[in-house]
């Protein structure tokens, strides 16, 4: 180690940006190029494009090393067979902040992919900078009728739809059947209430078993289900005002605080990792946990008997859950034909057609009425039923920052360092200036 190491810190930031020096001057926009007809993904609709499409996929490992990679390879094979002359090159990027930083750097430098998979909460950031080619010009009437309206809104930013919505993993409540059985407690119905949930969490807490666990870290919405189901929202409808510190929000957060105080949640709940929540559930240490549909595969693989319920009903008076959306986005490019071809691939990857071509393609409920994931994966049915009750986080450019202010304060409230009201007010102090920018 030497004095030179002190130079590393600024370099971490800068090295990631050096490539951006070559930023090309591209014009944001979203109209379909002349002569390009939106349509299906079959040969007739290939648009005549012959060439390469670069597809960046989060978490993809070449050579079919993972189950998800095998699905991607199968989708590529199916699409290329239907579109002779199209060569899809898939590049895997890590499913973490470093992977996203690599994507951002490539987009900033103008040499990014033709299409990439991304969560909907990052779309406004790209949309505000004019990085993406909106899908509006490529959306057919058939698409509009097929995609659930509230889910199409989930990719809308400033009047334009920024990406092809693929799937929605709403946050559900997983119940460990064995723990319920051992405790002699009946599995509740889907219309259970917050009071039922609180009582269950405490009843199921025994030596070595905690009644409930949820991830409270960044870039997640898990614990927010218990605030949203009371009727709280982070921002108001037009995203101009912070509202999580409403009486509904305070009541929801107080549920978590009370459960922690009662010992019904593990003592490290404020810093526990997302994967550790799932592992604790698998190990029989947590009777209930929050999670998206992505947990199903892992739980089945570990031969865990479980039940999925929607979040308990709170003061909102109906089932309300929160979730994100997986999408495929197409960056702006100088080559209109290539961009159009990428959009056609985007439609295919989010359609019922790909589900027919690639068994098990959808790891979460699809965004189209024509997609029924539960037909092949019955455990997915409760998540499909939750689709109409999903609330998305606000589509604002600074969502990542807003998100980073929410979780630490919730952690402090749960730890007893602040009251629920103080914690939610403290979030507002950080968030409100961002809304005014």
């Amino acid at each position, binding site marked *: 180690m030497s004095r030179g190491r*002190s130079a590393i*810190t600024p*370099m971490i930031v*800068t090295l990631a940006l050096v490539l951006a020096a070559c930023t090309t001057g591209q014009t944001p926009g979203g109209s379909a190029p002349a002569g390009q007809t939106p349509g299906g993904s079959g040969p007739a609709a290939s648009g005549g494009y012959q060439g390469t499409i670069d597809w960046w996929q989060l978490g993809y490992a070449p050579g079919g090393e993972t189950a998800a990679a095998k699905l991607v390879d199968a989708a590529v094979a199916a699409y290329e067979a239907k579109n002779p002359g199209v060569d899809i090159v898939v590049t895997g990027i890590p499913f973490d902040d470093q992977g996203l930083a690599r994507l951002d750097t490539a987009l900033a430098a103008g040499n990014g992919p033709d299409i990439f998979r991304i969560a909907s909460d990052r779309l406004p950031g790209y949309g505000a900078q004019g990085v993406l080619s909106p899908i509006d010009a490529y959306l057919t009437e058939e698409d509009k009728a097929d995609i659930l309206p509230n889910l199409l809104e989930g990719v809308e930013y400033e009047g334009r739809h920024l990406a092809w919505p693929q799937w929605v993993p709403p946050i559900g409540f997983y119940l460990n059947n064995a723990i319920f059985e051992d405790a002699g407690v009946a599995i509740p119905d889907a219309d259970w209430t917050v009071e039922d949930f609180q009582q269950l969490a405490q009843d199921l807490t025994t030596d070595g078993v905690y009644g409930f666990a949820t991830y409270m870290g960044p870039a997640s919405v898990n614990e927010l289900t218990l605030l949203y189901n009371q009727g709280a929202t982070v921002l108001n409808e037009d995203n101009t005002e912070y509202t999580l510190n409403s009486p509904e929000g305070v009541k929801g957060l107080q549920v978590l605080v009370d459960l922690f105080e009662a010992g019904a949640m*593990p003592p490290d709940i404020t810093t526990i990792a997302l994967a550790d929540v799932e592992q604790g559930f698998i190990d029989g240490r947590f009777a209930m946990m929050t999670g998206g549909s992505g947990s199903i595969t892992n739980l089945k693989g570990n031969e865990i008997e479980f039940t999925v319920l929607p979040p308990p009903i709170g003061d909102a008076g109906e089932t309300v859950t929160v979730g994100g959306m997986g999408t495929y986005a197409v960056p702006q490019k100088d080559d209109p034909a290539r961009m159009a071809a990428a959009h056609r691939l985007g439609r295919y990857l989010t359609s019922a057609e790909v589900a027919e071509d690639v068994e098990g393609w959808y790891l979460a409920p699809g965004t189209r009425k024509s997609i029924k994931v539960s037909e092949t994966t019955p455990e997915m049915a409760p998540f499909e039923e939750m689709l109409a009750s999903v609330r998305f986080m606000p589509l604002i450019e600074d969502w*990542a920052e807003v998100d980073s202010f929410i979780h630490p304060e919730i952690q402090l409230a749960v730890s007893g360092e602040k009251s629920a009201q103080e914690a939610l007010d403290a979030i507002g102090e950080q968030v409100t200036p961002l809304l005014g920018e």
Partner: protein
Amino acid sequence: MTASASVARGAGRVRRFWSRYGAGYLFVAPSLLFFLVFIFFPLGWSFVLSFQEFGFRGSTWVGLDNYLGLLRDPIFRQAALNTVIYSVFTVAVWVLVAMVLATLIHPLPPRLRTFFRAAYYLPAVTSAVFIALVWKWILNANPWGLANHVLSLFGAGPVGFISDPSSFAGANVALWSVILSSVLTIPAVGVVLYSAALAGIPQELYEAAETEGAGALAKFRHITVPLLKPITLYVAIIYTIAAFEVFERVYVMTGGGPGYATNTIVYLIWRTGFRFGDYGVASAQAFLLFAVIATVSVLQFRALRSEVEY
């Protein structure tokens, strides 16, 4: 004197310089090129970026706004305070432990000395992430964490070592736990450096002290410590730099939480740059840290420098 004579004399000077130093410059050229491209240029770029608001389609000049915003930011101030507390304690303990360990193994037979040097160097060649993961398990708040399991044998705990943000001894429990995990990791480089330095201290000094009736502690205090001062300066500086740049331990063990209890400056830089994509502010944070480290290093240099010769 004519112009042509002046030119010829200049050319001669260049030729002499080249024949004398040319080979040396050629040898350092690859390293210099690497330095310019991958260190100097990014540093300069980062400095410029710290005065800009980063955008995918071009950045906007914002003057000192990024720096002034940081000084007003309570989260940055908390991270800075956490970093200072972490650094003060870890550096002090690391330097002391390294010096004591090196002193203890110095009188051992050569084979045993080599064994201990190698053993103590292991942490330096072990993945920092792996070490942090092990400490995370040891300090796990649940009964199945090693520390809490031991406490439970005595009917105590569980203690939320890394999940308790409550105040404790001027900081908070979670931060002290991270500090504890650091100071209990053997300062490998320091042990090796001190061992090498100890070998250079003339034995006659110790023999003379023994003749005067000095005990082991007196010899350590009045001979070893003063004569190790140059190495202590170096070790203190490199450990200060390392401590101020603590990241992976925080990232793995606590994720900066609970709340902001274990946020440090480099953790914030990572979060601001790679999670928010706010590279301008992240650069400003990096340069503030750079300034702090440089200042502390200068102060350490002034406080510890000596003219020791032996």
